[in-house]
Every structure is written in structure tokens, then in C-alpha cells.
């Protein structure tokens, strides 16, 4: 009994630590009593908050994600979907199905962030919206041209489709709302839901960012690395990663025209790319038959595995699905050592070409878009068992959805908040190398120089030289000398600015003749 309790305490401590988000400030060396008091109070509150959060987690979020456990000689990857189907309840078995739509080409999928709705897009212009809870087809449209990608915007009401020439935005009823001509022929679309940005890569290798709230084009960058359809958003920081044919992966943000990071991941072309939801892991696959897992904090490879992957996807719980040909492999790391092992496999009917694998949020379901329609299989332990209705609610009512839309719009992050390490927001900026001193700083410097000059002691000179008048004079001289470089600098700056000014405007005319000066064409 006692041991159990202790165990519980340990567990709680762990949880509390998680919610404390790092070490408390060490106030011991702090001299400022007031600040010390304030910080102590704050820390106290943080501790309380973390404790309640831990308690809530313990008592109100009781669902724990399960996973397959092999007994004895059994191997988890030998377990077939059929054998899983025998063990599970009816509602879960509903999630095992194949939709065969042979005509309209390979399908690509996207789920809403709450996992309730799915948009499926066939290459030949077939768009379908399905309610995954009831498996009702909400809307089906045919756009009659090539469709390369589909992506949901902030909720199920709107989705963007990359079509032959331009991406379009449709609403749930299949009404075309916008045609985003500036993007061009887009190969891949991604939506950054915290920033309300639609990111696209077109066939000329141009990366576009468009704010879907105001319609403003936030960024338009030439990658200069050729055509690619490998694009993924890092859900942790909103950085968009592109995989290129030169084997490099570049990471972009909408406020910088050069990639934040450019890393050589594979010697051959990068075929797909996926991010772990915590943002620290990236999986890439190259055409040279390698799948690599990277630590994005150190930009180092953690693990290299053999195998092709046409598509990769991380689940909410960190399972990695890789699809190639008609074969799907799911890798998992339950030990937490970031060593991914084979967890489950699934092979489709022969001849099905898997185009996209995508885990359904908040469900242990993997959606597969392939050349003959789409399928859904069960991957135990892939989805997050407890949902947070602040983040995404699979049981959302329309009223809640409306509320949430407004809230998320109010909480919309500006595009400049996208950076490699978003925890840097609100911290002290590191001093920069060459920052021009402000006028105030220059003045302060001068003042300080004068002050030091004034306070210097003179040597005792011989009788004649030590006259007060002479000393005063000397002191004055010293002050002047201290001032001189600063003044010179100022003068120089002034001159340069004047020169600039001079070069800009045309020849000065007398006032009476100014009206005859030819106006520059606007």
C-alpha cells in the first residue's frame, strides 16, 4: 500500500514537473527584496496551477492510449488487420474499410484538425467530403481538372484544392469561393492553422504564403532548388520544410527570403518528409532507399533505416507511418529512446499504389489514399486518447465551431512569430554585432567621456606650471580632446547624410522657377 502511494506520488511529481514547464527561478542570490517577494508569489501560483493541472490530468483524463503487445514469440508486425478486427468493438471495426473508386485516380486525403471530417481528392477532379463519425458523404463535386492536393483550412467549412492551374478555395457545399491565381500551378498545399496562412509550392519551385483571413500575400519566395512536391509544416513552430531533388531539405518562414535551415539529408532526391507533433523529430525518405530520422534541435541524424517511402506521416502519439507501393509500414518507439522499430505492417491489394498516408487525429486510425480510392486501417496507440476542447473537439457542435472560429481568429498569430525556436518569443534579444548607436547613446557616451576627463587628477607640477589658471586651461583642453572623436564622428555622419540628400534631389532652382521643374514620373 505504502509503495503504491509512493508510486502515485512519483507519478504526480512527474506530471507536475511537466506542467511547470521547466525549473523554477532560483531566488537565493536575488538582492531585490520586492522582486524576490513577487517572484516567490508567482512561483507559488505556478506550482499550484501545475498541481491542479496534474490532478486534472490524473482524474479527468483517464483514457490511456493502448498499443499492441506481443506475447512470447509473437511479433506485433505480424498481426493482421483481420485479427485486430476480431478483437475490437463494433464502433472501432467501422474504421476498417476500403473505398474503391477506380476511375478517378489516386486519392489524396486531409483530415480536419479534430479528425471529424475528411476531404478526399482524386487526381481526376473528384472531391469528396466525408463525415468520419457517421461515414456520411457530405458533399461530392467534380472539378473536371487535375487535382493535386487538398487541404482543410481552419475548420471543416473551407478547404483549398490545388488544381491544374491554380489553387481554389471551396466551402463545404462545394461552392468555389476563391481562385488563388498568384500561387500558380500548385503541387502541394499546407495550412498553418495558428497563423491562418496557406502555404503552397508551385511547379516552378516558388513558395507562397497567403493570409486566408485578409487575403494578403505574406510571402513569395523562389526556392531556386527546382520543382518539388515534398512539403510539410512543422506543427510545433510553423516552419515549412521542403524536400528537394538535390537531397536537401530547406526550412522556410514567411518573413525571410532565404531558408532558415538548409540541410543535406540524402544523396538522392527527397521523396517525402514528416514532422513529429512535438517538433523535435523529422523523418525524411530519399530515393536512395533510406529513411532517416532527425533531431531538429541538433540537426543530426538519430536513426537511419533502409526502405523506400513515398509518403511519411507521424501520428499524434509519435508513430511513424511509411507507405510505398501497396505496402504500409508503421514504426513506433514505445521505449522513449527515439529508436524507431517496426510496429505494424499492412499490405493493400496488389497493384494499389499508396499515394498518401495520414493518421486521423484523436483516433487510432490511419487513412490511406491510393490509386484505387482510399482505405482506413486501425493502428492501435496512434491517436491521442484525450482531446482538449480548447485545441480541437471531435464532437464539436456548430455553435462551438462558430465560437472557436472567432476565438482562433482573435488569437491569430502574426506571420513573424514563425521561427525555429518559438520559445524565444518574449525573451531578451541577444546583442547584435553592429548596431548603430542611437543619438541618446552617443550623447551618454560623450557625457561619460567628459566626466572622466573632468575628474582626472593632475600631476603636481613645478611651481610655475601649477597655477590655477593653467590647470583650468589644461582641464579644458582635456575635455576638448575627449569630445573630439565623438564630434568628428557626428560630423562625418552628418556629411554623409547630406551627400545622400544632395544626390537625391535635382538641382536646386530658385523658387520662382521651381514650378517649371519637370516632375518625375510616378
Amino acid at each position: 500500500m505504502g509503495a503504491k502511494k509512493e508510486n502515485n506520488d512519483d507519478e504526480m511529481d512527474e506530471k507536475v514537473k511537466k506542467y511547470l514547464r521547466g525549473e523554477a527561478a532560483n531566488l537565493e542570490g536575488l538582492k531585490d527584496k520586492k522582486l524576490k517577494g513577487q517572484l516567490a508569489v508567482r512561483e507559488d501560483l505556478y506550482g499550484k496551477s501545475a498541481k491542479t493541472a496534474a490532478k486534472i490530468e490524473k482524474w479527468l483524463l483517464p483514457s490511456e492510449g493502448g498499443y499492441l503487445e506481443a506475447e512470447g514469440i509473437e511479433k506485433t508486425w505480424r498481426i493482421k488487420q483481420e485479427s485486430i478486427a476480431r478483437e475490437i468493438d463494433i464502433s472501432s471495426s467501422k474504421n476498417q474499410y476500403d473505398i474503391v473508386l477506380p476511375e478517378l485516380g489516386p486519392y489524396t486525403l486531409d483530415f480536419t484538425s479534430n479528425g471529424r471530417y475528411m476531404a478526399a481528392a482524386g487526381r481526376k477532379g473528384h472531391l469528396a467530403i466525408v463525415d468520419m463519425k457517421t461515414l456520411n458523404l457530405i458533399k461530392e463535386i467534380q472539378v473536371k481538372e487535375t487535382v493535386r492536393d487538398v487541404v482543410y483550412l481552419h475548420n471543416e467549412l473551407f478547404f483549398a484544392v490545388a488544381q491544374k492551374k491554380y489553387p481554389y478555395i471551396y466551402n463545404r457545399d462545394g461552392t468555389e469561393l476563391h481562385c488563388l491565381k498568384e500561387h500558380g500551378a500548385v503541387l502541394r498545399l499546407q495550412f498553418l492553422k495558428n497563423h491562418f496562412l496557406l502555404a503552397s509550392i508551385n511547379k516552378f519551385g516558388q513558395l507562397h504564403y497567403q493570409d486566408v483571413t485578409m487575403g494578403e500575400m505574406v510571402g513569395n519566395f523562389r526556392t531556386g532548388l527546382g520543382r518539388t512536391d515534398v512539403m510539410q509544416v512543422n506543427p510545433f513552430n510553423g516552419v515549412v520544410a521542403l524536400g528537394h531533388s538535390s537531397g536537401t531539405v530547406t526550412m522556410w518562414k514567411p518573413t525571410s527570403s532565404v531558408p532558415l535551415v538548409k540541410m543535406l539529408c540524402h544523396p538522392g532526391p527527397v521523396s517525402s518528409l514528416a514532422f513529429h507533433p512535438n517538433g523535435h523529430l523529422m523523418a525524411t525518405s530519399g530515393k536512395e532507399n533510406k529513411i532517416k530520422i532527425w533531431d531538429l534541435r541538433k540537426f543530426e541524424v538519430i536513426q537511419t533505416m533502409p526502405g523506400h517511402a513515398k509518403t511519411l506521416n507521424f501520428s499524434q502519439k509519435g508513430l511513424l507511418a511509411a507507405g510505398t507501393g501497396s505496402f504500409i509500414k508503421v514504426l513506433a518507439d514505445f521505449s522513449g529512446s527515439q529508436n524507431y522499430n517496426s510496429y505494424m505492417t499492412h499490405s493493400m491489394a496488389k497493384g494499389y499504389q499508396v499515394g498518401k498516408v495520414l493518421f486521423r487525429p484523436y483516433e487510432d486510425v490511419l487513412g490511406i489514399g491510393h490509386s484505387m480510392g482510399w482505405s482506413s486501417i486501425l493502428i492501435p496507440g496512434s491517436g491521442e486518447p484525450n482531446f482538449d476542447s480548447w485545441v480541437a473537439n471531435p464532437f464539436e457542435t456548430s455553435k462551438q465551431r462558430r465560437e472557436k472560429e472567432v476565438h482562433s481568429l482573435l488569437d491569430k498569430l502574426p506571420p513573424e512569430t514563425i521561427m525555429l525556436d518559438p520559445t524565444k518569443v518574449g525573451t531578451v534579444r541577444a546583442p547584435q554585432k553592429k548596431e548603430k548607436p542611437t543619438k541618446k547613446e552617443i550623447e551618454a557616451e560623450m557625457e561619460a567621456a567628459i566626466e572622466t576627463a573632468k575628474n582626472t587628477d593632475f600631476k603636481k607640477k613645478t611651481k610655475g606650471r601649477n597655477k590655477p589658471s593653467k590647470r583650468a586651461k589644461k582641464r579644458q583642453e582635456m575635455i576638448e580632446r575627449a569630445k573630439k572623436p565623438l564630434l568628428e564622428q557626428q560630423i562625418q555622419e552628418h556629411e554623409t547624410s547630406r551627400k545622400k540628400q544632395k544626390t537625391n534631389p535635382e538641382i536646386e532652382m530658385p523658387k520662382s522657377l521651381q514650378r517649371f521643374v519637370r516632375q518625375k514620373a510616378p
Partner: protein
Amino acid sequence: MAVKKRKERAVGGESGNSKKFKKYSNSKGPMKKNKNDTRKKGKGPRLPSALRTELDRLDPKIASDSDDGIDLDVGNDVYEYEEEVPQEESRKNRRFDPVENYDYELPEDFEDENVPSDDEDDDGDFGVGGNKGSRNDDVDASDGDEEEDDERHLRMLQGVTGMSTDAFGGKKKRNSVVISEAHPESEDNPTRDVLEGDSHITLQDLLDPIQGKAGYSKLRKRVQHMDRKSTSVQAPLPKVDREKLERMAVYEHSKKDITKWEHLVKRNREAPTVFFGGDVDLGFSTVGAIASEFEPRTEFEKKIASLVYDDKVMEAHKADGSKLLELNKISEEDYMKHRDHVAKMRSLLFRHEMKQKRIKKIKSKTYHRLKNKDKLKVESAEMLMDPEAAKEQARKQEFKRAEERMTLKHKNKSKWARRILERGLNAQDEGTRAAMAEQLHQHALLTRKINTVKDSSSSSDSSSDDDDEGSNEDRASELLEKAKEKTLKVLEDDEELPNSGVLSLPFMVRGLKKRREEAIEEAKLALQEYEQLEGTNDAENSKPATASGRRVFGRANNEVPDSNKKTKTDNKMKMDNYYGNSDSEGDLEAKANVNIEGGKRNDVEKDVGPNYDRKEAADVSIFKNFDDNGDPGSKTTYEVAIFASDSWRKMKSENGVDKNAKKLQQVKEAIVHNKDMEEGEEDSDSESEQMVDGILSSAPKESYELPSQSELIRHAFAGDDVEEEFEKDKQEILNEENPEPDKPVLLPGWGQWTHVQQKKGLPWWMLKEHEDAKRKREESLKKRKDAQLKHVIISEKVDKKAEKLQTKSLPYPFTSKELFEQSMRMPIGSESNPETAIRSLNRPEVMKKPGVIIKPIKFVEMHHHEKSEDNKRSGQKQKKNKSKGASGKNKKQSN
């Protein structure tokens, strides 16, 4: 400290004022002299020598004693010439009257303090240098007094010991004199002592006369007792010191007073939030509570109250209460009946309401017209049935008519009508004109003389209804005819163009022509419309006769060819449409075909599936062939490869199209099982939609050859130079972000003066500068995040826009960056904290309800244990932190 000072001063002052001592000598009470003082007596400064000699001359008897400087006998002689006696002294003399002196027990300085005199101020000023000048201060005087006391004491001791008999004798006389003194001493009336020179009155002196009388022994004992007990009274402190002391005392006191607030202030200061106006009594919240407070004030109210609260009434009410309750009883059946009735009525009412609402909503004009008609009919029927109602109706009508006659309401008198008339009736649209006419009609009706109400109303109703319908149509047709005629006229008569004037100008002419043409066209259109309308009118007219005549047929005729055309085009469309209507027979056929061909297709698929990757590889290889003459713009392999495959495929598709031209049916079949189309589309964006038709036949024919092993290997290692390229790239970026320093260059002519200089080469400082710059660059390169990562380039570019998200300097109370960042690590929003914690995390510093007056802080006694707790708490905080830190460290270590 203060005491010491005073003593010193006393010593300092004594010699200077020695001459005056004599004057107070008799005024002083029986005081003991401090031994110290006696000892110090000799130390005091002496009299100036001139004075001393004078003294000697005057009184050779004490000359030997003069060393002491303080001889009382000397004093009177010295003061002989000093006529004027300071006022205060004389006063003092009087004050220290022997009689008063007996009860005198308070310390001397007490009295002195209370004397309101200028001297007190002077005292402050001259306290130190008191012996300057001839004026006396109180301090000095008191010092002198002490001296006197000593002497008196000595003498008293003598008396006690019985050695002072001779002294008694001398004093007796004087004593009597003292008693007989008639006037209070003053400046003009100096005391006898002063006059006589002998000034020693002791208590003994006073006691002696009453020796033997009743109570003497008692008194003497008391005196002796007092003598024994009494101590010397010290001189008051100087004012500065005294005030200082006072201030100190006050400070102590006030400190104590104020420190009692300390805990309150501390508590408020340390509290993260201060609450103001926690509970405010807003008074009564209910009407009942307010009413219960009511007190009768006016006479009337009082009367009522007395009646209401009359004891008898109250009692009666109480007694009656039960009876009344009994009366209130209703049988269950009755109640049920009543309830049912009420429910029924309610539901009826509700239904009626709903119905009314629905009816009210109806906007249809025809409905209302019909309704009005119905109403009228009902009324007329009523009139027929009921003479009462008829009378009523007649009266109403009469009233209306009378009113109309009086007001002429429906004539053209109203504001609206006048305005319309002003503008001209012709300028108005149909509606207004009709309304106007209607009004006039109304007027006519109402003002017309009528024989009987009944006749007119019934007949007019029926007739007008019929007339309206008929006449409307007639009128319409007439109007149409008229319009037609007019338009025809317009069409017929060609306006002659004017030959002169402005209108004859060529552009005017052109404009006129144009307008005319437009007009003609319009007219034609109008004409057509008229004809149509006429036609419909006719049709309507002929409705009863021919159920659906011309009109229907006419339209049908028009439509039929259209629809035929449409169907035709539809069919065509279907042909074009690659997934056409499934209704058509052709499609059905196609489907059948598909089924038939299913097996074949599967075979094809089997081929396609495993070769998928191979095909890609093949693409690459194709590209490789193209690479030599590939376009320079595209870097990547794929685009070119795509072009290659495109062209190839396009050719095939063209073939397919040709076939389509021959056999549409076949095309359809092909479309349906067009399997590989995605590939084509993926690769070729330039292809049109119709490309769909293309691959159909060709796709199955595509054959995939297994790429050779060498090709595969080449593909696998195709990126070998990728690494080099990347490195080059990185170097470039590094150079861009940290530019390499320029190589030192000599100016032409530099160092060419002589031979020696030329040999030396570049000057040392240039080299040094270059070295420095190089070193700097190296260092900055080393500092880069990607310095250790060979295959990673992390941009060091500063994002100007993101700069505003970080602080440039530490915010005020913080002094260390770590502390600040740690304090900022926790989000305090509602998204990341439990509901119970958000409030306290986001509470403002001051909480105040609006409209609440903030009262000044009130003193609350704090209990002792609370205080100690407070202290403990502050201690605990630190301890906790310590332990926290320690545990954190431990954890780290364990990790």
C-alpha cells in the same frame, strides 16, 4: 551627558557672578550643597585683580579669603555701586519668600522653566558665555543658589551641633526686620539684606522664634527630616538639549505609535493583490423588506395603521382565519371543471391568435380582395337578415357621407393630391394616377345623392365587381390598340431632318439618326409586345371556350425544336464528356464493355504495380539521355524527364484522338477504363483536358523494361556530387554572411621610391590588419551554430520583423536574464492553465468594485502568533526555494 555639561557650565558661571550671590542667599531654601560643588569652588576663575584690590580695600577683613572668589560678605560691598537690580531677581526674591519656601518641594528648575521672561531666551543665547556682561541668567543664578545652599547648609549643621549661638543673635534682629518689612522688594526698594549687607537667613533663624510653642518640635523634626532627605536639584538643561530630548521622547513615542501599523503596511505591500470594498451593504434587496421598514408618518397613514393594527381587528382576523379558510374550500370536481374550462378557453384563444397571426401575414392582394368581398357579402346578408344591422350600416354610411361632405376628404384637397396635381397628373406613373382616380371615384360615390342606402350598396357591389373585370379587360385592349396605333405612327412618319441651324451639323445629324433608329427599334419591340399581349388577352377571353388554345400551341411549337436541338447537343456533349450521363444507352453499353474488359485491365495493373519505381527510374534514365542537350534553365532532373515522357505520350494521345474521330463509341469505352491517366496528368501540365482521351488505348500498350543493375546503381549514387555542391553552397553563404577580408593591395607607386622598400613588400600594418580581419572572421565562423555541422546551413540573418517579439533590454526590476526568462516561462492564459488557477494568475494588483468608496486603512490588532507566523512564512519561502533548488540539483545529478 547633559548633566555633565550643566555642571561644567555651573562651574564656569560661578565666579563671574559671585557678586550677586549674596542677593539670593536669603531667598534660598534649606538646600544642601553638593560636595562636588564645594570642591570645584576653588577652581573657578578668579576676579580680575583690579576688582580684588578694590575689595581688599573695602573690606580688609576678608582680604585673606578673597582667593576663593566667592565670599558672601564681600558681595554686598561690591554691589553698592551697582544700583539697579535686575527685575527678575527682585521678583525672585519675592517669590522665594521664606513663607512660601516651606512648602517648596518641587525642583527648582521646574519653576524656572515656567517663568515667562525674556531672560529665558537670553539664556539660550548666552548660556555658554554667561559670565560676560553684567546681566544675569537664570542658570547662573541657580548656580549661585547652589553655592548659597552649601553655605547655608554648613551653617545649619553648625546650628544643629550647637556651635552657632553667636550667629543666632545676629540673625534675630534681622529676622524681625524682615517681618516688619512693609513693601515688597523691588528695584526701588531693595531688601534689607542688600542694604545691610548681611543676608543669611536660615531655617533655623525662622524656627527659633517659635521655639517652645506648640508644634515646634514637630516642625523641627520635619525640617530635620527634610534636610536629611533632600538632595540637590540640578539646573535645567539648555533649551537646545531640552528640545532635543523632547524630540527624542516624542520620536520614541510616535515610533511606537507608528510601528503598530507596520504589519498592516507590510501585509499590504507584500500582498500580490489588494482588495477594496469587499463587502458592501447595498441595503434592502426586496420590496417586502423595504415595506417592512415602513413607518406611518402622516396623519392619514397613522390612522390607517391604527386601524390595521388594531388589536381587536388583529384578534378577529386571527380568529376568523380558520373560518375563512374553510370557506375557501372548493370541491375537487368544481376545481377540475374550472381548470378544464380555463384550459379550453386558453387553447381556443391560442388557436385563434395563431390563426389571426397567420392571416395577418398573408400579403396576397387577391386574397385580401376576396376577403373584403366576403366581408361585404356577409354584411349585406346580415342586413338582409337583420334590420338592426341594416340600420346600423345605414347610419354608418350616412355618417361617412356627411363627413365627406364636410371635409371633402377625397377631393383633390389633401396635401398629397395637391402635390401631385401641381406636378401634373401626366407626369405621374400608373399607380399614382390610378390612386388619384380611385379617390375621385370615392368622392363621387360618397357625395352622390342616393335614394336608399340598401339599394345602392347592394347593386353597386354586384355590378361594380362584374364591371371591373369586364371593363378592365376592355380598357386594356383599348389602350393597347391606342398604343399600337401611336407606335405605328411613329414608325411611319419619317421626321425630316432639318437643313439649317445647329441641328444640321453633321454630327448632330448623325446623333439624331442614331436616336431615331433606337426609337424605331424600341417601337418595334413595343409593337411585338402589344401583339403578344393582345394575343394573350384573346386567349384569356377565349378561355372558357377553348381550354388551352393558341397560346399553348404557340409555345409548344417554339419549344419543340429547341428541345430537339438541346437533346441533340446534349448527346454531343455526352460524347465529349468523358464521364457522361449514365442514363444514356451508350453508357450502359460502355459499362458492359468495361466489365468484359475487366480481366484484361487487371492484368495490366499487375504489370504496372511493381514496376512503378522502375518506371521512375526509367524516367530518370531518359532524362540522362536528354541531359547533354537539356535546357540550361532547369537544374533538376525531373522537369526535363517530364518533358521527355510528355512528348512521347502526347504523340500516342494524338493517335488516340484520331481513332476517336472515327469511332466515338470506342472512345467512351476507353475513357471509362482510362487507368493510367493520372500519371500523364501528373507529369504534363501543358496537356489539355482532352488528353484524357489520349492514353486510354496507348496506356496498356506501354511496356516497362526492368532497368539494368548498373542503372540502378547509378541512380543510387547519382547524388555523389550533391555533397560537394552543398559544401560549395555553404561556403558561399558563409562568405556572404561573414565576408572575407580584402587582400591588402599596394597602391601603384607605393614603395617604389627606392630599391629597399620594394624588397620589403607590404607594410607591416597592412599585413596585420589583414590578419586581424581574418582572425575575426574565423572566430565568427566558429561561433556559428552550424560550425560543427557539415551538412547543415543555419541562416544567421536577423529577421527585422521578428525583432519586436523580443525585448532589447531587461525590464526594470530584473537584473539577470536567466531570472527574467525563467519568470516568463509559464503561460498564464486560459488555454494552458486549469480554470481554478487562471483567476489568481491574472489578478490585477488592485481589486476594486466600481462605485465603492475606498476607506482609509483601519488599524487591526495583530495577534502575537500571527506575527510569528508571518516571520516564519517569510523564512519558509526561502527555505522552500532552497529545498526546491536542491531537489532540482539532485534530480539533475540522478539523471
